Protein backbone atom coordinates (compact mmCIF):
# COMPACT_ATOMS: atom_id res chain seq x y z
CA UNK A 1 0.00 0.00 0.00
CA UNK A 2 1.35 3.39 -0.95
CA UNK A 3 0.44 6.58 0.88
CA UNK A 4 1.91 9.95 -0.04
CA UNK A 5 3.82 11.60 2.79
CA UNK A 6 5.75 14.83 2.79
CA UNK A 7 9.07 15.58 4.38
CA UNK A 8 12.65 14.59 3.80
CA UNK A 9 13.37 17.09 1.01
CA UNK A 10 16.25 18.69 2.85
CA UNK A 11 17.72 15.32 3.79
CA UNK A 12 17.43 14.12 0.18
CA UNK A 13 19.05 17.26 -1.25
CA UNK A 14 21.91 16.99 1.20
CA UNK A 15 22.33 13.28 0.52
CA UNK A 16 22.67 14.02 -3.20
CA UNK A 17 25.15 16.81 -2.52
CA UNK A 18 27.23 14.41 -0.47
CA UNK A 19 26.93 11.81 -3.23
CA UNK A 20 28.42 14.36 -5.65
CA UNK A 21 31.29 15.03 -3.26
CA UNK A 22 31.97 11.33 -2.74
CA UNK A 23 31.79 10.74 -6.48
CA UNK A 24 34.59 13.24 -6.97
CA UNK A 25 36.67 11.53 -4.29
CA UNK A 26 39.74 13.25 -2.88
CA UNK A 27 40.31 16.61 -4.61
CA UNK A 28 44.03 15.89 -4.30
CA UNK A 29 43.62 13.29 -7.05
CA UNK A 30 43.11 14.38 -10.67
CA UNK A 31 39.50 14.11 -11.84
CA UNK A 32 38.70 11.27 -14.22
CA UNK A 33 37.52 12.47 -17.63
CA UNK A 34 34.87 10.82 -19.78
CA UNK A 35 37.31 10.20 -22.67
CA UNK A 36 39.68 8.49 -20.20
CA UNK A 37 36.89 6.10 -19.20
CA UNK A 38 35.93 5.53 -22.83
CA UNK A 39 39.50 4.72 -23.87
CA UNK A 40 40.92 3.00 -20.79
CA UNK A 41 37.91 1.23 -19.27
CA UNK A 42 36.61 0.17 -22.67
CA UNK A 43 35.29 -3.22 -21.57
CA UNK A 44 33.17 -1.62 -18.83
CA UNK A 45 31.90 0.81 -21.48
CA UNK A 46 31.06 -2.16 -23.71
CA UNK A 47 29.10 -3.88 -20.99
CA UNK A 48 27.10 -0.74 -20.28
CA UNK A 49 26.33 -0.35 -23.99
CA UNK A 50 25.30 -4.00 -24.37
CA UNK A 51 23.03 -4.15 -21.32
CA UNK A 52 21.90 -0.54 -21.66
CA UNK A 53 20.97 -1.57 -25.21
CA UNK A 54 22.38 1.60 -26.75
CA UNK A 55 25.60 1.84 -28.75
CA UNK A 56 27.20 5.16 -27.80
CA UNK A 57 30.62 4.85 -26.10
CA UNK A 58 30.71 8.47 -24.90
CA UNK A 59 27.33 8.21 -23.20
CA UNK A 60 28.23 4.88 -21.60
CA UNK A 61 31.48 6.39 -20.28
CA UNK A 62 29.58 9.35 -18.85
CA UNK A 63 27.12 6.96 -17.20
CA UNK A 64 29.98 5.02 -15.59
CA UNK A 65 31.43 8.25 -14.21
CA UNK A 66 28.06 9.41 -12.89
CA UNK A 67 27.36 5.99 -11.35
CA UNK A 68 30.77 5.93 -9.59
CA UNK A 69 31.63 2.75 -11.45
CA UNK A 70 28.46 0.90 -10.45
CA UNK A 71 27.80 -0.69 -13.84
CA UNK A 72 24.19 -1.69 -13.18
CA UNK A 73 23.45 1.89 -12.10
CA UNK A 74 25.20 3.09 -15.29
CA UNK A 75 23.08 0.69 -17.36
CA UNK A 76 20.00 2.11 -15.63
CA UNK A 77 21.05 5.64 -16.65
CA UNK A 78 21.51 4.54 -20.27
CA UNK A 79 18.16 2.74 -20.34
CA UNK A 80 16.45 5.84 -18.96
CA UNK A 81 18.15 8.06 -21.56
CA UNK A 82 17.27 5.61 -24.33
CA UNK A 83 13.56 5.98 -23.62
CA UNK A 84 13.82 9.73 -24.36
CA UNK A 85 15.15 9.13 -27.89
CA UNK A 86 12.74 9.25 -30.79
CA UNK A 87 13.10 6.14 -32.95
CA UNK A 88 14.52 7.32 -36.28
CA UNK A 89 14.36 3.94 -37.93
CA UNK A 90 15.59 0.39 -38.07
CA UNK A 91 18.84 -0.76 -39.64
CA UNK A 92 19.09 -3.37 -42.32
CA UNK A 93 20.45 -6.51 -40.60
CA UNK A 94 24.21 -6.11 -40.12
CA UNK A 95 26.40 -8.50 -42.09
CA UNK A 96 28.84 -10.01 -39.62
CA UNK A 97 30.42 -11.97 -42.49
CA UNK A 98 31.87 -8.61 -43.61
CA UNK A 99 33.30 -7.84 -40.18
CA UNK A 100 36.75 -6.20 -40.00
CA UNK A 101 37.96 -8.67 -37.38
CA UNK A 102 40.25 -7.75 -34.49
CA UNK A 103 39.90 -11.31 -33.25
CA UNK A 104 38.61 -14.45 -34.88
CA UNK A 105 39.10 -17.92 -33.50
CA UNK A 106 37.58 -21.33 -33.99
CA UNK A 107 37.78 -24.12 -31.44
CA UNK A 108 36.59 -26.68 -34.00
CA UNK A 109 38.92 -26.28 -37.01
CA UNK A 110 42.60 -25.53 -36.65
CA UNK A 111 43.32 -24.55 -40.24
CA UNK A 112 40.31 -22.39 -40.90
CA UNK A 113 40.61 -20.00 -43.90
CA UNK A 114 41.36 -16.53 -42.57
CA UNK A 115 43.32 -18.09 -39.74
CA UNK A 116 43.17 -18.12 -35.98
CA UNK A 117 43.60 -14.48 -35.05
CA UNK A 118 43.94 -13.91 -31.31
CA UNK A 119 43.45 -10.15 -31.15
CA UNK A 120 43.80 -8.17 -27.91
CA UNK A 121 42.85 -11.03 -25.59
CA UNK A 122 43.28 -11.81 -21.89
CA UNK A 123 43.61 -15.50 -22.86
CA UNK A 124 47.06 -16.98 -22.19
CA UNK A 125 47.92 -14.22 -19.71
CA UNK A 126 48.95 -15.58 -16.34
CA UNK A 127 46.52 -13.46 -14.35
CA UNK A 128 49.35 -12.11 -12.27
CA UNK A 129 48.94 -8.53 -11.13
CA UNK A 130 51.15 -6.28 -13.22
CA UNK A 131 52.66 -3.71 -10.89
CA UNK A 132 54.18 -1.86 -13.83
CA UNK A 133 50.67 -0.54 -14.52
CA UNK A 134 50.69 1.14 -11.12
CA UNK A 135 53.51 3.37 -12.39
CA UNK A 136 52.56 6.06 -14.84
CA UNK A 137 53.80 6.86 -18.29
CA UNK A 138 53.73 3.60 -20.22
CA UNK A 139 52.55 3.80 -23.84
CA UNK A 140 52.95 0.28 -25.14
CA UNK A 141 52.96 -0.41 -28.86
CA UNK A 142 51.77 -3.60 -30.50
CA UNK A 143 53.72 -5.38 -33.24
CA UNK A 144 52.28 -5.21 -36.73
CA UNK A 145 52.39 -7.62 -39.63
CA UNK A 146 51.18 -7.26 -43.21
CA UNK A 147 47.43 -7.81 -43.35
CA UNK A 148 46.55 -10.30 -46.04
CA UNK A 149 43.09 -8.91 -46.67
CA UNK A 150 41.71 -12.39 -47.25
CA UNK A 151 38.07 -13.04 -46.43
CA UNK A 152 37.16 -14.79 -43.19
CA UNK A 153 34.32 -17.14 -44.14
CA UNK A 154 32.04 -18.54 -41.48
CA UNK A 155 33.15 -21.78 -39.93
CA UNK A 156 29.59 -23.09 -39.87
CA UNK A 157 29.45 -22.69 -43.68
CA UNK A 158 31.84 -25.65 -43.99
CA UNK A 159 29.60 -27.89 -41.93
CA UNK A 160 26.59 -26.53 -43.75
CA UNK A 161 28.06 -27.48 -47.13
CA UNK A 162 28.03 -31.13 -46.10
CA UNK A 163 24.61 -30.86 -44.50
CA UNK A 164 26.13 -31.73 -41.15
CA UNK A 165 24.67 -28.74 -39.33
CA UNK A 166 21.13 -27.59 -39.05
CA UNK A 167 20.70 -24.76 -41.60
CA UNK A 168 19.85 -21.21 -40.64
CA UNK A 169 17.25 -20.18 -43.24
CA UNK A 170 17.38 -16.49 -44.17
CA UNK A 171 14.17 -14.51 -43.99
CA UNK A 172 13.07 -10.93 -43.78
CA UNK A 173 10.24 -11.25 -41.29
CA UNK A 174 9.94 -8.29 -38.93
CA UNK A 175 11.14 -9.42 -35.49
CA UNK A 176 9.24 -8.49 -32.33
CA UNK A 177 10.78 -5.68 -30.27
CA UNK A 178 10.60 -5.95 -26.50
CA UNK A 179 11.27 -2.21 -26.13
CA UNK A 180 7.95 -1.61 -27.87
CA UNK A 181 5.75 -4.50 -26.77
CA UNK A 182 6.09 -6.22 -23.41
CA UNK A 183 7.60 -9.68 -23.42
CA UNK A 184 5.04 -12.42 -23.97
CA UNK A 185 5.37 -16.17 -23.64
CA UNK A 186 5.95 -18.36 -25.49
CA UNK A 187 8.71 -16.06 -26.83
CA UNK A 188 10.00 -16.80 -30.31
CA UNK A 189 13.75 -17.06 -30.94
CA UNK A 190 14.07 -13.46 -32.16
CA UNK A 191 12.58 -12.15 -28.92
CA UNK A 192 14.73 -14.51 -26.83
CA UNK A 193 17.90 -13.31 -28.58
CA UNK A 194 17.00 -9.65 -28.03
CA UNK A 195 16.36 -10.36 -24.36
CA UNK A 196 19.61 -12.31 -23.95
CA UNK A 197 21.86 -9.77 -25.69
CA UNK A 198 20.72 -7.05 -23.23
CA UNK A 199 20.51 -9.46 -20.30
CA UNK A 200 22.76 -9.29 -17.26
CA UNK A 201 26.17 -10.76 -18.06
CA UNK A 202 26.44 -12.53 -14.73
CA UNK A 203 23.00 -14.06 -15.00
CA UNK A 204 23.45 -15.22 -18.61
CA UNK A 205 26.88 -16.60 -17.68
CA UNK A 206 25.41 -18.52 -14.74
CA UNK A 207 22.66 -19.97 -16.90
CA UNK A 208 25.17 -20.99 -19.58
CA UNK A 209 27.42 -22.56 -16.95
CA UNK A 210 24.47 -24.58 -15.63
CA UNK A 211 24.06 -26.19 -19.07
CA UNK A 212 27.74 -27.14 -19.09
CA UNK A 213 27.43 -28.71 -15.66
CA UNK A 214 24.64 -30.98 -16.80
CA UNK A 215 21.38 -29.07 -16.51
CA UNK A 216 20.24 -29.48 -20.15
CA UNK A 217 23.69 -30.48 -21.30
CA UNK A 218 24.15 -29.90 -25.01
CA UNK A 219 27.90 -30.35 -25.65
CA UNK A 220 28.89 -26.98 -27.05
CA UNK A 221 31.98 -26.16 -29.08
CA UNK A 222 32.84 -22.60 -29.98
CA UNK A 223 32.57 -23.03 -33.73
CA UNK A 224 33.61 -19.47 -34.18
CA UNK A 225 34.13 -16.33 -32.18
CA UNK A 226 34.74 -13.02 -33.92
CA UNK A 227 35.15 -9.48 -32.67
CA UNK A 228 35.39 -6.44 -34.91
CA UNK A 229 33.58 -3.62 -36.62
CA UNK A 230 30.69 -3.77 -39.03
CA UNK A 231 29.04 -0.93 -40.95
CA UNK A 232 25.42 -0.16 -40.10
CA UNK A 233 23.06 0.79 -42.92
CA UNK A 234 19.52 2.08 -42.86
CA UNK A 235 16.95 2.72 -45.58
CA UNK A 236 16.30 6.45 -45.63
CA UNK A 237 12.79 7.09 -46.93
CA UNK A 238 13.46 10.65 -48.12
CA UNK A 239 16.34 9.38 -50.27
CA UNK A 240 14.82 6.09 -51.38
CA UNK A 241 17.99 4.07 -50.75
CA UNK A 242 20.09 2.74 -47.88
CA UNK A 243 23.02 4.75 -46.53
CA UNK A 244 25.65 3.94 -43.95
CA UNK A 245 24.80 5.58 -40.63
CA UNK A 246 27.91 4.51 -38.76
CA UNK A 247 30.10 1.68 -37.64
CA UNK A 248 29.83 -0.44 -34.51
CA UNK A 249 31.90 -3.07 -32.72
CA UNK A 250 30.26 -6.43 -32.18
CA UNK A 251 31.19 -9.79 -30.70
CA UNK A 252 29.67 -12.82 -32.39
CA UNK A 253 29.76 -16.41 -31.18
CA UNK A 254 28.43 -19.40 -33.01
CA UNK A 255 28.31 -22.56 -30.98
CA UNK A 256 28.24 -25.96 -32.62
CA UNK A 257 26.40 -28.49 -30.52
CA UNK A 258 26.26 -32.25 -30.64
CA UNK A 259 22.82 -33.53 -31.52
CA UNK A 260 21.86 -37.14 -31.97
CA UNK A 261 18.61 -36.32 -33.72
CA UNK A 262 15.05 -36.33 -32.53
CA UNK A 263 11.61 -37.34 -33.72
CA UNK A 264 11.66 -34.47 -36.20
CA UNK A 265 15.35 -33.76 -36.95
CA UNK A 266 18.12 -36.00 -38.36
CA UNK A 267 21.39 -36.50 -36.44
CA UNK A 268 23.43 -33.37 -37.14
CA UNK A 269 25.11 -30.50 -35.38
CA UNK A 270 22.90 -27.71 -34.09
CA UNK A 271 23.64 -24.08 -33.39
CA UNK A 272 23.47 -21.51 -30.67
CA UNK A 273 24.03 -17.86 -31.45
CA UNK A 274 25.41 -14.93 -29.53
CA UNK A 275 25.73 -11.36 -30.81
CA UNK A 276 26.60 -8.58 -28.38
CA UNK A 277 27.64 -4.92 -28.64
CA UNK A 278 31.33 -4.21 -28.12
CA UNK A 279 34.12 -6.59 -27.20
CA UNK A 280 32.07 -8.81 -24.89
CA UNK A 281 33.18 -12.33 -25.48
CA UNK A 282 32.20 -13.98 -22.18
CA UNK A 283 28.69 -12.65 -22.72
CA UNK A 284 28.53 -13.70 -26.40
CA UNK A 285 29.58 -17.29 -25.61
CA UNK A 286 27.12 -17.43 -22.70
CA UNK A 287 24.35 -16.11 -24.92
CA UNK A 288 25.03 -18.79 -27.55
CA UNK A 289 24.84 -21.58 -24.94
CA UNK A 290 21.62 -20.30 -23.42
CA UNK A 291 20.10 -19.70 -26.87
CA UNK A 292 20.84 -23.33 -27.73
CA UNK A 293 19.33 -24.64 -24.49
CA UNK A 294 16.15 -22.61 -25.07
CA UNK A 295 15.72 -24.16 -28.53
CA UNK A 296 14.82 -27.60 -27.15
CA UNK A 297 11.25 -27.42 -28.40
CA UNK A 298 11.92 -26.44 -32.01
CA UNK A 299 14.58 -29.17 -32.23
CA UNK A 300 12.22 -31.79 -30.83
CA UNK A 301 14.35 -32.43 -27.72
CA UNK A 302 12.98 -33.50 -24.37
CA UNK A 303 12.35 -30.91 -21.72
CA UNK A 304 14.41 -32.29 -18.85
CA UNK A 305 13.15 -29.55 -16.55
CA UNK A 306 16.46 -27.69 -16.45
CA UNK A 307 16.32 -23.98 -15.56
CA UNK A 308 18.11 -23.00 -18.80
CA UNK A 309 15.34 -24.70 -20.84
CA UNK A 310 12.64 -22.62 -19.18
CA UNK A 311 12.25 -19.50 -21.33
CA UNK A 312 9.91 -17.86 -18.89
CA UNK A 313 12.36 -18.35 -16.03
CA UNK A 314 15.44 -17.25 -18.01
CA UNK A 315 13.99 -14.26 -19.84
CA UNK A 316 11.95 -12.94 -16.92
CA UNK A 317 15.03 -12.80 -14.72
CA UNK A 318 17.79 -11.83 -17.17
CA UNK A 319 17.16 -8.09 -17.06
CA UNK A 320 19.21 -6.49 -14.29
CA UNK A 321 17.28 -3.21 -14.42
CA UNK A 322 13.92 -4.90 -13.89
CA UNK A 323 15.46 -7.11 -11.24
CA UNK A 324 17.21 -4.38 -9.28
CA UNK A 325 14.21 -2.09 -9.59
CA UNK A 326 11.96 -4.61 -7.92
CA UNK A 327 14.59 -5.79 -5.49
CA UNK A 328 15.66 -2.35 -4.35
CA UNK A 329 12.19 -0.88 -4.04
CA UNK A 330 11.74 -2.83 -0.82
CA UNK A 331 14.20 -0.51 0.90
CA UNK A 332 11.95 2.49 0.22
CA UNK A 333 9.45 3.49 2.90
CA UNK A 334 6.77 0.84 3.50
CA UNK A 335 5.67 2.36 6.82
CA UNK A 336 1.94 1.91 6.31
CA UNK A 337 2.33 -1.57 4.87
CA UNK A 338 4.41 -2.57 7.81
CA UNK A 339 2.07 -0.90 10.31
CA UNK A 340 -0.78 -3.10 9.10
CA UNK A 341 1.45 -6.19 9.30
CA UNK A 342 2.35 -5.21 12.84
CA UNK A 343 -1.27 -4.87 13.84
CA UNK A 344 -2.15 -8.17 12.23
CA UNK A 345 0.60 -10.06 14.04
CA UNK A 346 -0.38 -8.45 17.40
CA UNK A 347 -3.99 -9.48 16.92
CA UNK A 348 -3.11 -13.06 15.96
CA UNK A 349 -0.76 -13.32 18.94
CA UNK A 350 -3.40 -11.97 21.29
CA UNK A 351 -5.93 -14.47 19.95
CA UNK A 352 -3.46 -17.35 20.21
CA UNK A 353 -2.55 -16.40 23.79
CA UNK A 354 -6.18 -16.07 24.76
CA UNK A 355 -6.88 -19.51 23.32
CA UNK A 356 -3.93 -20.99 25.25
CA UNK A 357 -5.10 -19.36 28.47
CA UNK A 358 -8.57 -20.73 27.89
CA UNK A 359 -7.18 -24.25 27.28
CA UNK A 360 -5.06 -24.06 30.46
CA UNK A 361 -8.09 -22.94 32.46
CA UNK A 362 -10.22 -25.84 31.17
Amino acid at each position, binding site marked *: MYVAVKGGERAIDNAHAWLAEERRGSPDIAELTVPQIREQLALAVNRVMAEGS*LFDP*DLAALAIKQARGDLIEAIFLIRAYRTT*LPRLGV*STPVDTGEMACDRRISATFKDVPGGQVLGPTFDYTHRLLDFKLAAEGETPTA*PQAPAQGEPTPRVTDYLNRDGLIQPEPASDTTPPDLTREPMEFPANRALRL*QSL*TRGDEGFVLGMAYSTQRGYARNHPFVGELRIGTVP*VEMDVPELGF*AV*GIGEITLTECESVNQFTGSKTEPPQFTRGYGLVFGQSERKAISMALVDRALRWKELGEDNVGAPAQDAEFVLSHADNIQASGFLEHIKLPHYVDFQSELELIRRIRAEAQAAQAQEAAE
Partner: protein
Amino acid sequence: MENLTTRKGWMSLLAKAPAPALTALWETQKAPPGFEWLRPPETGGVMIRGRMGGTGAPFNVGEMTVTRCALRLESGEVGHAYVQGRDKAKARIAALIDALMQTARADALREAVLEPLAESHRAARSARAERAAATRVDFFTMVRGED
Protein backbone atom coordinates in the same frame (compact mmCIF):
# COMPACT_ATOMS: atom_id res chain seq x y z
CA MET B 1 35.34 1.24 -48.89
CA GLU B 2 32.91 3.90 -49.98
CA ASN B 3 32.62 5.08 -53.56
CA LEU B 4 32.95 8.84 -53.13
CA THR B 5 31.29 9.60 -56.45
CA THR B 6 27.91 8.34 -55.23
CA ARG B 7 25.62 10.00 -52.74
CA LYS B 8 25.38 6.76 -50.78
CA GLY B 9 29.17 6.63 -50.66
CA TRP B 10 29.82 10.12 -49.33
CA MET B 11 26.90 10.05 -46.90
CA SER B 12 28.15 6.75 -45.47
CA LEU B 13 31.64 8.17 -45.07
CA LEU B 14 30.37 11.35 -43.39
CA ALA B 15 28.16 9.31 -41.02
CA LYS B 16 31.13 7.63 -39.36
CA ALA B 17 33.73 10.39 -39.72
CA PRO B 18 35.15 11.61 -36.39
CA ALA B 19 33.69 15.06 -35.67
CA PRO B 20 37.01 16.82 -34.94
CA ALA B 21 38.55 15.68 -38.23
CA LEU B 22 35.45 16.57 -40.24
CA THR B 23 35.19 19.99 -38.60
CA ALA B 24 38.86 20.77 -39.16
CA LEU B 25 38.67 19.86 -42.85
CA TRP B 26 35.41 21.73 -43.32
CA GLU B 27 36.86 24.87 -41.78
CA THR B 28 39.59 24.97 -44.45
CA GLN B 29 36.82 25.56 -46.98
CA LYS B 30 35.70 29.00 -48.14
CA ALA B 31 32.79 30.72 -46.42
CA PRO B 32 29.91 28.31 -45.87
CA PRO B 33 26.90 28.86 -48.13
CA GLY B 34 23.62 30.29 -46.91
CA PHE B 35 20.93 27.71 -46.21
CA GLU B 36 17.57 27.19 -44.54
CA TRP B 37 16.66 24.25 -42.34
CA LEU B 38 14.15 21.80 -43.71
CA ARG B 39 14.61 19.72 -40.56
CA PRO B 40 16.85 21.07 -37.84
CA PRO B 41 19.26 18.57 -36.25
CA GLU B 42 17.52 15.95 -34.15
CA THR B 43 19.11 13.12 -32.17
CA GLY B 44 17.34 9.79 -31.97
CA GLY B 45 17.86 6.06 -31.86
CA VAL B 46 18.08 3.54 -34.66
CA MET B 47 17.36 -0.07 -33.81
CA ILE B 48 20.18 -2.29 -35.07
CA ARG B 49 19.22 -5.71 -36.35
CA GLY B 50 21.33 -8.82 -36.66
CA ARG B 51 20.58 -12.23 -38.11
CA MET B 52 20.38 -15.54 -36.23
CA GLY B 53 23.53 -17.48 -36.97
CA GLY B 54 24.74 -14.44 -38.93
CA THR B 55 22.65 -15.42 -41.97
CA GLY B 56 19.17 -16.37 -40.74
CA ALA B 57 16.06 -14.52 -39.64
CA PRO B 58 16.51 -10.99 -38.23
CA PHE B 59 16.32 -9.99 -34.56
CA ASN B 60 16.80 -6.72 -32.67
CA VAL B 61 20.21 -6.29 -31.04
CA GLY B 62 19.91 -2.79 -29.56
CA GLU B 63 19.90 0.83 -30.61
CA MET B 64 22.56 3.33 -31.61
CA THR B 65 22.42 7.11 -31.41
CA VAL B 66 22.03 8.91 -34.72
CA THR B 67 21.60 12.62 -35.48
CA ARG B 68 19.80 13.66 -38.63
CA CYS B 69 18.98 16.94 -40.35
CA ALA B 70 17.99 18.32 -43.74
CA LEU B 71 18.62 21.74 -45.26
CA ARG B 72 18.27 23.65 -48.52
CA LEU B 73 21.02 25.85 -49.92
CA GLU B 74 20.20 29.29 -51.27
CA SER B 75 20.96 27.83 -54.70
CA GLY B 76 18.23 25.22 -54.14
CA GLU B 77 20.11 21.95 -53.52
CA VAL B 78 18.83 19.85 -50.61
CA GLY B 79 21.31 18.19 -48.28
CA HIS B 80 20.57 15.33 -45.87
CA ALA B 81 22.62 13.94 -43.03
CA TYR B 82 22.27 10.82 -40.88
CA VAL B 83 25.38 10.67 -38.72
CA GLN B 84 26.42 8.40 -35.87
CA GLY B 85 26.28 9.92 -32.39
CA ARG B 86 24.74 13.04 -30.91
CA ASP B 87 26.80 15.82 -32.46
CA LYS B 88 24.43 18.33 -34.08
CA ALA B 89 27.24 20.51 -35.47
CA LYS B 90 28.64 17.46 -37.23
CA ALA B 91 25.22 16.68 -38.72
CA ARG B 92 24.96 20.25 -40.03
CA ILE B 93 28.37 20.05 -41.72
CA ALA B 94 27.52 16.65 -43.21
CA ALA B 95 24.25 17.97 -44.65
CA LEU B 96 26.00 21.05 -46.07
CA ILE B 97 28.58 18.82 -47.73
CA ASP B 98 25.83 16.55 -49.07
CA ALA B 99 24.13 19.57 -50.64
CA LEU B 100 27.36 21.05 -52.01
CA MET B 101 28.31 17.69 -53.55
CA GLN B 102 25.36 18.28 -55.88
CA THR B 103 26.88 21.57 -57.09
CA ALA B 104 29.91 22.60 -59.13
CA ARG B 105 31.97 22.52 -55.92
CA ALA B 106 31.72 18.71 -55.76
CA ASP B 107 35.16 17.88 -57.14
CA ALA B 108 36.94 20.40 -54.95
CA LEU B 109 35.11 19.18 -51.84
CA ARG B 110 35.78 15.56 -52.65
CA GLU B 111 39.46 16.28 -52.90
CA ALA B 112 39.74 18.60 -49.91
CA VAL B 113 37.37 16.95 -47.41
CA LEU B 114 36.10 13.52 -48.42
CA GLU B 115 39.31 11.95 -49.66
CA PRO B 116 41.34 12.90 -46.57
CA LEU B 117 38.54 11.50 -44.37
CA ALA B 118 38.44 8.29 -46.38
CA GLU B 119 42.22 8.06 -46.21
CA SER B 120 42.34 8.42 -42.44
CA HIS B 121 39.58 5.84 -42.07
CA ARG B 122 41.53 3.46 -44.30
CA ALA B 123 44.68 4.09 -42.29
CA ALA B 124 42.94 3.47 -38.94
CA ARG B 125 41.38 0.31 -40.30
CA SER B 126 44.61 -1.07 -41.68
CA ALA B 127 46.47 -0.20 -38.46
CA ARG B 128 44.05 -2.52 -36.65
CA ALA B 129 44.20 -5.16 -39.39
CA GLU B 130 48.00 -5.18 -39.17
CA ARG B 131 47.91 -5.58 -35.40
CA ALA B 132 45.41 -8.42 -35.83
CA ALA B 133 47.64 -10.04 -38.46
CA ALA B 134 50.53 -10.02 -35.98
CA THR B 135 48.39 -12.11 -33.60
CA ARG B 136 47.59 -14.76 -36.20
CA VAL B 137 48.68 -18.20 -35.04
CA ASP B 138 51.18 -20.13 -37.14
CA PHE B 139 50.79 -23.74 -36.16
CA PHE B 140 53.70 -26.10 -36.45
CA THR B 141 53.91 -29.76 -35.58
CA MET B 142 56.34 -30.73 -32.85
CA VAL B 143 58.82 -33.46 -33.76
CA ARG B 144 57.30 -36.62 -32.45
CA GLY B 145 59.30 -38.97 -30.33
CA GLU B 146 58.48 -42.38 -31.79
CA ASP B 147 61.57 -42.69 -34.05
